[in-house]
């Protein structure tokens, strides 16, 4: 589309809105903001609007409203200037230059634009600083202290074997109020019993819930063993292949300086 007035641009930047475009034109054309050349400004503005290839209707509407405002100001400017004695209205107040409101708006917006640039710099400076993620209050920050010889796979295999041997449903009692058993609760129970058993450890069969139990209890027991093992809070041993699995509490981590198991977690005050 041929432009009535070619804007003096190399490329067409995206404008945030009509004020952004107007400020751009004022700066680009080195116009005196207090004596805006309305004819030029209006022409250039309209030229830009016509050049918008894919007008976003919600934004375009605002550009069109501004276009109407500009045209109105321009037409008022073209009217012959009133005689000097008529530049005051009945109340004695001076009649405003038709451009005044627009100029105020442009100045105000321009102020914020320049401050926004300053904040953009601060944003950049700030993004060069890095912080840590918050540390959760949980025993997860225990130091990993590897011990025990059994892999998690052995536990899973045992779980599968046991679950397969159950006659589904026959063991569960569901007529009574269902308990909400959570993994965390089971973990705490297992850890407590392992700690109570001390170095001798406790056999897996002792940890199994007594019948009648529900399938979910078995699953939770094994999940909790896996999780405790992962957190190195317990150790798991097996004397012979397919023999009894024994669970025992993790010994204090054999690391220098001692007591690192409290690292960054304040475990000391919890889960004794």
């Amino acid at each position, binding site marked *: 589309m041929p432009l009535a007035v070619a804007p003096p641009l190399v490329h067409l930047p995206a404008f945030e809105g009509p004020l952004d475009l107007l400020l751009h034109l004022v700066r680009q054309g080195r116009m005196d903001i207090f004596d805006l050349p309305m004819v030029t400004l209006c022409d250039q503005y309209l030229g830009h609007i016509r050049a918008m290839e894919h007008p976003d209707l919600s934004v375009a509407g605002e550009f069109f409203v501004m276009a109407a405002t500009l045209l109105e100001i321009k037409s008022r400017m073209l009217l012959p200037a009133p005689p000097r004695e008529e530049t005051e209205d009945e109340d004695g107040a001076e009649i405003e230059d038709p451009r005044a409101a627009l100029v105020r708006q442009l100045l105000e917006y321009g102020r914020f634009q320049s401050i926004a640039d300053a904040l953009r710099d601060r944003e950049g400076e700030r993004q060069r600083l*890095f*912080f*840590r*993620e918050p*540390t*959760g*209050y949980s025993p997860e*920050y225990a*130091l*990993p202290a590897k011990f025990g010889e059994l892999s998690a796979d052995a536990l899973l295999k045992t779980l599968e074997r046991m679950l397969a041997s159950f006659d589904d449903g026959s063991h569960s*009692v569901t*007529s*009574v*109020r*269902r*308990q*909400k*058993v959570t993994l*965390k*609760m089971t973990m*705490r*129970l297992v850890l*407590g019993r392992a700690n109570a058993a001390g170095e001798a450890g406790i056999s897996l069969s002792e940890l199994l*819930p*007594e019948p*009648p*139990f529900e399938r979910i209890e078995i699953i939770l027991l094994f999940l909790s063993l896996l999780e405790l093992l992962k957190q190195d809070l317990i150790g798991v041993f097996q004397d012979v292949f397919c023999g009894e699995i024994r669970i025992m509490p993790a010994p204090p981590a054999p*690391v220098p*300086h*001692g*007591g*690192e*198991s*409290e*690292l*960054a*977690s*304040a*475990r*000391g*005050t*919890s*889960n*004794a």
Partner: protein
Amino acid sequence: MRSLLGMVEALLFVSGEPLSLKSLARATEWDEEAVLEALKELQERYSQSDTGLQVLEIGGGWQLGTRPEYAPTIGKLLAPHANRLTRPALETVTIIAYRQPLTQAEIEAIRGVGCDGVLKTLTERELIGEVGRKQTPGRPILYGTTTQFLHYFGMANLEELPPLPDEEESVEEEMTMALNAAGVGG
């Protein structure tokens, strides 16, 4: 002005997990030997002053962590909802303290209201915990108090629980009666 020591420190700080010599060397663009030296110097520096942090070789890597002696202080900051117990929570934990071990149904029979949420809160705050299962149908959880409970209330052990005053023996009786009435007593 950047230094290898500063780089290593910044890297350990932002990383949530132990960093291997290899990844430290890659990020700093120094060789592993120099990185190791910087790590040792950093470790030394943190060990000399009255600092709250330490450099640890841990899990096959290096990590910046807090010193163990600051765990209680950190606990005060991070403990979930580290404000005072609500009234329902306080009531519930009191019942548990004096009547443990007991089940949720028994607690509810005494309090006369459900206490799902309260038990969850108390469990999360580790003031109570599961201490076993009742050998009745459904094998309900038996709750008891924890060492954290003792800590929270400034007691060395449960024997320090204030005894129920004579004139309030009725409280104990009421609890028992409530349990019996609800048919969950044991």
